[in-house]
């Protein structure tokens, strides 16, 4: 029915007493996500939006059976919070926090890898399985349930595509906002692997952007392992080199990370590449028409 999260996912919110955490915990609850508790060290014993706040993740997990954590703590505390969730063996962690120091992100992902824990982010909008579960800051109403898997480095651009699909009457199985930082956990390859294995996903949209070589690597992976159709898009094709385009990861360094290289790699892997967001929707429609 989806990847990573579904209606049974039990979510805790680390940083639930902070501004962002509180607001989005409420929005997630409203969407239908099973928020079973929150964690803010030093504020255990309170209730926020009707769920209990704990002092530690271990305690929260023991008392709620949580199997997912969404992290909204400030950037310099995010590494510790994520390590706490990893140590408590929470199998899926989404770090929404923006501005995490890269050296912290390196430590986070090294530990997550060693422990076999999936980490989404940091600096990402989270994940949504429409109609079932939302973790993070996606505007839930923009998506409708369906059979398209959506993978994206960008937040609002994901919403744009989700909205476009909805307006065309097309829904998605899950949207994975992998995040715009240079060092991230669940990446395009991992997401592709999950969607390929998901029997309720028919087609995958892969939204990349300039910077790094993640799209080139994903293209290699698609060529080797993905049988489902993939439609691609690269944001920033007209970006000047050497300038950071908002995301810490969106920068063309030297001749590395260009949209041209990524587009070529996609095409070589049999991925149809849309030039505009609206073209993505058109390509999806055509694919669906062919299949039907």
């Amino acid at each position, binding site marked *: 029915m989806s990847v990573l999260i579904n209606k049974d996912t039990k979510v805790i919110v680390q940083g639930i007493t902070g501004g962002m955490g509180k607001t989005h915990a409420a929005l997630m609850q409203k969407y239908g996500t099973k928020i079973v508790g929150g964690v803010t060290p030093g504020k255990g014993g309170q209730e926020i939006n009707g769920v209990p706040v704990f002092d530690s993740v271990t305690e929260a997990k023991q008392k709620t059976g949580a199997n997912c954590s969404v992290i909204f703590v400030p950037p310099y505390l995010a590494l510790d919070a994520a390590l706490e969730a990893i140590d408590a063996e929470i199998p899926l962690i989404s770090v929404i926090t923006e501005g995490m120091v890269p050296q912290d992100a*390196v430590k986070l992902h090294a530990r997550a890898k060693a422990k076999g824990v999936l980490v989404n982010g940091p600096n990402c909008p989270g994940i949504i399985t429409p109609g079932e579960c939302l973790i993070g800051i996606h505007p839930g109403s*923009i998506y409708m349930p369906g059979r398209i898997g959506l993978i994206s480095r960008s937040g609002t651009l994901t919403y744009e595509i989700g909205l476009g699909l909805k307006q065309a009457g097309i829904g998605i199985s899950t949207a994975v906002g992998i995040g715009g930082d240079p060092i991230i956990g669940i990446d395009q390859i991992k997401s592709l692997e999950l969607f390929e294995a998901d029997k309720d996903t028919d087609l995958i949209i892969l939204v990349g952007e300039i910077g790094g070589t993640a799209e080139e690597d994903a293209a290699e992976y698609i060529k080797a392992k993905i049988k489902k159709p993939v439609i691609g898009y690269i944001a*920033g094709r007209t*970006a000047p080199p050497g300038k950071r385009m908002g995301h810490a990861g969106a920068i063309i360094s030297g001749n590395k990370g260009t949209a041209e290289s990524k587009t070529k790699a996609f095409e070589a892997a049999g991925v149809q590449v849309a030039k505009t967001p609206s073209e993505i929707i058109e390509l999806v429609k055509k694919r669906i028409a062919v299949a039907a």
Partner: protein
Amino acid sequence: MRLREYEAKQLFKESGISIPPGMVIKCAEEVFGIKNFPCTLKTQVLTGGRGKAGGIKFADNANDAYAKAQDIFKLKVKGDLPTAILVEPKVTIKKELYVSILIDRAYRGPIIMASAEGGVEIESSNSIQIVPIPEGNYSSYLGRKMATQLGLSGADVLKFGDIVNKLWNVYTKFDCDLVEINPLIVDGDNNYVALDGKVTINEDALGRQPRFDGMLSEHLTDLGEREFKGKMCGLNIVELEGNIGILCNGAGLTMATMDLVFHHGGKPSNFLDVGGGASKDHVARALDLVASSETVKVLLVNILGGITDCVEVANALKYYKDIRPEAKMVVRLVGNNEAAAADVMKAAGIETTNILDDAVSKAVAIAG
């Protein structure tokens, strides 16, 4: 935040890496305090290519140095005028190498990059060697491993390894994105000396690196005026060369919008990501900033409200329309609180469209 050469070298020195005995001068007259000739005068700017631009000169005596320092203080390198010159005695160079530590995105961790050929064009060199640092756990053998990969042997392995150990300390202690010595030279006494250095402190880390408090603003001399102002008020803006001012939320959507302007035959004047959850005042500041360039003929506003409340944006647009009724705006505003925002827009007499392509082609038409 990229440090100037002399600032980077100060960090090297404190961590035990040898540097030439330099002197930082703030005006040309200070050259008369120089004790060792011949010497090198190096402009302290943040951009690359200072050598080609004439920012590095040699002087044989004080008079010579005085004339050359005067020249350098007047010389802009890619728009950047120096406030300081680093003066160093000329050193004997037996050998030049290159070494740096940085995070490799694909490896998801820090790596050591080095070359036995130091010099300016290192990025395109084929002689680059890489030693990844396993899970970010540094140990001295990694520097020595790199030394042997470079073909060094004997005492040089230990000396080069020692430099890498110390460079790693700088890298971790100050949350650096990059630490680089280029060239790392072997001098007449077979000592390894950092002749030039580059250190970039991660900007997200500045809040926990008190040493650099207050230094950011004077380390942005390579930014354009709008970029500098944007940075100071938390707006991601990148200067481009067209006439359509873009204001958007989210990096990916902003890039997509920028691409779409080109796609429809227009040219964006800028990239501006107003960020998530922006307030009316923040959006208003962004509008002012984008419009502050004389080349901007039309403002293209594309907001997809997720965390962002469309009403806040609408109120900012209304405010802007009030103070600059002549300004041309094309607005696409959808998402969170969209209906209420539409009411504000209607009352203010600002037209909107829901379709992104329509908005962009309209803006392109206005810009001409």
